[in-house]
């Protein structure tokens, strides 16, 4: 398929992109399962009386920076923390499809349409990986979806803002996927094996999306005046929602301490936010866009950029569902889920019919065999 040249503007590699990709690959090597400890190993039934010993063994695995696997004993609070985080993450992927899907039908070229559609598809795929990781902890995904539709589950706050122009798809991919990678790359080294391995796959694809977002914005900032204005407007609106993705400041975060101790999480919200800002500034310069913070400047002493923190009161309101598109996102999810109920019921009914038919066939065959070799059949049934 040649002939793309007319609409294809080769953008340079975003500065700093390489380092993140290398970090994912390093984590992938570390996330491999420990030899001799396959995920599907038969469960070693823990004797109920040696809880202390189990705890000690768990602590030793964490201290040695090794992986906890599904069959391993783990403290209830560790399991609960993981589930909370996995649920929020999976939900963010699923609800997060909406702001981008909003532009698939209107993408300005067929190539951009294909890229955007593939990105939304990847997000559905990420939701599936994460549900699979959560299912290793014994929770069914329908529980997550029910909670989500009932508004009991949270997801990343930026999703509750609307995508108003085409440039928003680029800004979302560059900024929010960029922030997601900074957040998630350390999770590739999470102490829970299935989570770490799911995150390696997710991060690889996210880094691809981030690159594509940069590319889409680059085309705009090197286009017409109207396109440049569209790009700047999108950056102006998405910068703070992206910064807010790292959550409340560490001083207010109720979960940070335990998550860090268990090595589910490895850096504080503030450390990650700073890292993101430091990565974005040179990329914004390369793109030729202005980040909407008059106090953003290099601090020689700290070796980091100083920046204005996001409005955390707004973050709290938006997480609770009061963002401009919050109600719409949940309502859309719920509508789609309800509209699909008859399909899921039919699937289940059809599968049951097939099982019944197969059982009937087996019974029939079994009966035939029974006539011939009755004794054997009875024995095997016993």
């Amino acid at each position, binding site marked *: 398929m040649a002939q793309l040249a007319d609409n294809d503007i080769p953008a340079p590699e975003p500065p700093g992109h390489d380092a993140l990709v290398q970090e994912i690959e390093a984590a992938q090597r570390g996330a491999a399962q420990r030899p001799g400890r396959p995920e599907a190993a038969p469960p070693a039934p823990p004797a109920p009386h040696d809880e202390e010993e189990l705890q000690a063994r768990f602590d030793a695995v964490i201290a040695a920076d090794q992986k906890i696997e599904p069959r391993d004993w783990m403290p209830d609070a560790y399991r609960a923390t993981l589930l909370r985080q996995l649920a929020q993450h999976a939900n963010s992927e699923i609800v997060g499809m909406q702001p981008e899907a909003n532009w698939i039908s209107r993408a300005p*070229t067929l190539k951009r349409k294909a890229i955007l559609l593939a990105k939304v598809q990847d997000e559905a795929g990420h939701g599936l990986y994460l549900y699979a990781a959560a299912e290793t902890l014994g929770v069914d995904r329908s529980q997550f979806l029910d909670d989500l539709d009932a508004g009991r589950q949270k997801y990343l706050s930026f999703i509750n803002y609307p995508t108003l122009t085409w440039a928003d798809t680029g800004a979302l991919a560059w900024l929010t996927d960029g922030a997601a990678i900074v957040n998630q790359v350390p999770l590739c080294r999470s102490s829970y094996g299935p989570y770490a391995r799911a995150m390696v796959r997710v991060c690889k694809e996210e880094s691809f999306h981030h690159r594509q977002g940069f590319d889409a914005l680059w085309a705009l900032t090197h286009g017409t005046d109207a396109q440049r204005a569209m790009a700047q407007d999108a950056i102006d609106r998405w910068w703070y929602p992206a910064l807010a993705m790292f959550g409340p400041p560490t001083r207010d975060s109720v979960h940070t301490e335990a998550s860090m101790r268990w090595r589910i999480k490895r850096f504080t919200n503030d450390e990650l936010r700073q890292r993101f800002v430091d990565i974005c500034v040179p990329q914004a310069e390369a793109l030729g866009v202005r980040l909407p913070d008059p106090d953003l400047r290099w601090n020689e002493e700290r070796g980091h950029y100083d920046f204005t923190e996001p409005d955390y009161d707004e973050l709290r309101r938006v997480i609770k569902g009061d963002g401009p598109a919050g109600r719409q996102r949940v309502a859309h999810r719920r509508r789609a889920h309800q509209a*699909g109920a008859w399909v899921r019921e039919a699937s289940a009914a059809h599968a049951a019919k097939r099982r019944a038919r197969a059982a009937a066939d087996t019974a029939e065959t079994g009966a035939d065999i029974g006539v011939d070799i009755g004794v054997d059949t009875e024995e095997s049934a016993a």
Partner: protein
Amino acid sequence: MTTAVHTAPDYLLRLGDDALVAAQRLCWWATRAPQLEEDVALANIALDLLGQARALLGHAGRVEGRGRDEDTLAFLRDDRAFTNVQLVELADTDFADAVTRLLFFGVYQDLLYRRLTASTDPVLAAIAVKSAKETAYHVDHAAAWTVRLGDGTEESHRRMRRATRDLWPYTHELFVSDEVFARAATDGTGVDPAGLRAPWRERITTVLTEATLPVPEDGWAPGGGRHGLHTEAFGPLVLEMQGLHRAHPGARW
């Protein structure tokens, strides 16, 4: 030695427009599928169709030699210049319609691409080889859903019965021959779709029968899409698809 054979651009446009408009409609399902696996599957099929459209429209533009590329053809033609069949442009908001259309259109495309792998136009033959692999999967997927829903619950059976009955009239247009198809068939670049009707009917009958669904009666046979006569649903689709591109004349993206 053979000289390079080129398919007529108007033949290629028909195939490309079918794939493009089918993809555009299928994209609506992203975030709306009945389960997450289906979001992935439908997006996958839409991506295949979009890829086919890009290859076919790109080839049409090059053969035509008037400097039109895939985007010029997709975004700067008016509604009346599109030559897709009406079947692919109808709006669907019921999963039963989406499945039924995917089955009807998928089997047609599958039969067509398999024959086009022998096209005397090597570019079209190569597109057909790749596309036939994709449509084989589309048909499997649609057939599996048709059986599941046809032979599922009372409600799903009723919905599939309605969808197959509603979409059946629009399938006739897939097999209507005219001088463009006849020429392409004669020079070996293309296929006359009239010859696909019997095998199409056979495959569809097999699936519907397994799904405990009746094969709808023939009767009303709307058409005109091949000559730019579309349904009222088509205008808004084109407007939505082209609006942004047209609002920035000459811009690159």
